């Protein structure tokens, strides 16, 4: 088992007769990895499996060389912010983080320092001594994040961490995840907000009905979706003139004017060849402003592989 990555080897989990995940083989490198899929696709099951909250029916999991059934080793370097919006009764935000750092075995002074550091990181200093029961949904989400990060883990597992956050805090939290990833952490996020996943992820794992549908960097995943030709947006002057020349290429399956009339949307089965030949096709009087993939993102890949309504293909 790899001591540097997170690996799933043929992992299955059944809840009685109900499938959680089936035959998952994954290797997750450092950086931000997003688990994407509709409700019930197995995202939380994967996260619970990698943190030992549930056990696989079959297969093996390794988190930096440690099996999830060794919590005394695993949680020295792993933090998990779950989706459960529940807390021990009667605690303030400060007590919540501090108490569980003591359970880690941290001495009081170190636990205090780590608690304040985590609370400052999620900008809850003013509310630290207020009861969590009186927190807003966004504050509860942030205190959970702080608790998961307080012991400076190398692996951070975050189940829907942006839920309930307002746009400003959301942007700050995403920036925080990016900075953690740049420090070399494994940050594993599940989210259903696809444009945010697209903006922050180094790699994605697409799940549907308990199966891994695709994994890897989003561009790589997109190019493997052969049944959906790549869509390219060309911003130019006189798009209709360019369209008539573009149809001469046998790799192009569709070309249509953009809704705003200032560009062309082209579908091609061979984007590399298309880019090479595009310069030759440009006719006099047509000025190219930009050429960029139009469906090389998580949202498109999600729609192609899983379906726009979240149903599997």
């Amino acid at each position, binding site marked *: 088992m790899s001591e540097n990555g997170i690996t799933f080897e043929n992992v299955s989990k059944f809840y009685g007769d109900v499938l959680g995940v089936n035959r998952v083989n994954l290797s997750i490198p450092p950086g931000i990895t997003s688990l994407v899929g509709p409700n019930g696709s197995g995202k939380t099951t994967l996260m619970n499996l990698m943190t030992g909250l549930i056990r696989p029916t079959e297969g093996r999991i390794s988190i930096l060389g440690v099996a999830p059934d060794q919590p005394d080793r695993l949680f020295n370097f792993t933090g998990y912010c779950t989706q459960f919006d529940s807390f021990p009764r009667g605690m303030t935000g400060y007590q919540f983080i501090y108490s569980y750092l*003591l359970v880690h075995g941290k001495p009081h002074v170190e636990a205090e320092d780590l608690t304040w550091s985590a609370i400052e990181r999620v900008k809850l200093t003013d509310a630290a001594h207020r009861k969590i029961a009186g927190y807003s949904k966004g504050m509860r989400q942030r205190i959970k994040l702080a608790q998961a990060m307080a012991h400076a883990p190398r692996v951070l597992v975050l189940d829907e961490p942006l839920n309930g956050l307002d746009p400003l805090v959301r942007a700050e939290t995403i920036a925080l995840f990016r900075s953690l990833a740049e420090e070399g952490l494994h940050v594993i996020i599940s989210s259903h907000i696809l444009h945010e996943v697209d903006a922050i992820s180094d790699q994605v794992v697409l799940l549907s009905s308990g199966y891994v549908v695709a994994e890897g960097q989003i561009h790589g995943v997109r190019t493997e979706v052969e049944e959906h030709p790549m869509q390219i947006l060309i911003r130019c002057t006189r798009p209709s003139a360019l369209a008539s020349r573009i149809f001469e290429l046998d790799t192009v399956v569709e070309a249509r004017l953009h809704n705003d009339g200032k560009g062309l949307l082209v579908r091609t089965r061979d984007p590399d060849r298309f880019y090479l030949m595009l310069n030759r096709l440009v006719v006099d009087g047509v000025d190219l402003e930009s050429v960029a993939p139009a469906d090389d993102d998580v949202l498109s890949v999600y729609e192609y592989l899983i379906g726009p309504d979240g149903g599997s293909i």
Partner: protein
Amino acid sequence: MNRASWNLWRAQVAAILRLEIKKNFLARRGIWIYLLALAPAVLMWVHAAMNLRDHRVCDLGRDNLIFATMFQFFYLRLAVFFGCVGVFLNLFRGEMLEKSLHYYLLTPVRREVLLAGKYLAGVITTSVIFCTGTALTLAAILIHVPHAAAAQYLLNGGVGHIVAYLGTTMLACVGYGSVFLLMGFLFRNPIVPAALVLIWESANPFLPALLKKLSVIFYLQSLSPISVPAQGDFAFLAILGEPAPAYLAVTGLLLVACVCLWFAARKVRQLEINYGTE
């Protein structure tokens, strides 16, 4: 297992105790446990107050017998028993229902250490509550006895009786605590294990000698300092075939507790968080 591991486990158990004891003592749902624990004390204090008001002389021997009967038939068999149901069944199950157990399971603490910490917190909580109840009841008896009679009683074995009552109460918490901690892993509905254990413990006088030893009440009755005469409707409960000597009774009870804790440790290692099914 080295010194560093022991130090870490000790620190972790201390941190778990800090969280759990506060929770156990201050839980609103546990008010009935205080009522159970203090009920005999309240009765005895009312009795003492009425005697003092009416200038009646207390019969220490009779009051001691009344206390011994109440201690064996109500306090150990019902009050401590159900108090332990309330505290120990909820150590894990209660947090499952509140969906907060995962915070413990996401710390670098061995599951067995977590179990030990929670169990110890339960024993401390129930021992403090029920030993206080026992001490207050005994104080109520002694407070309205003439001072000379009280001093004579204390000098002639009374202190030993008090220590035995308090020790037996604590051992009851240790024994029933371990049983209900294990039952909390085996059953979702607390009424089922409580009823099963109550039936088993009540049937103890009628069980064969070997099976008697697989109960908590057998050892607790052996440790009671004053034996209750077998008479009246509940005489059958007072029958104790062959009471075990104190050292064997303590050892036997601790052995029963260890066996229960060993099975509980096996269960806690396999514990999964699946709040949806709770």
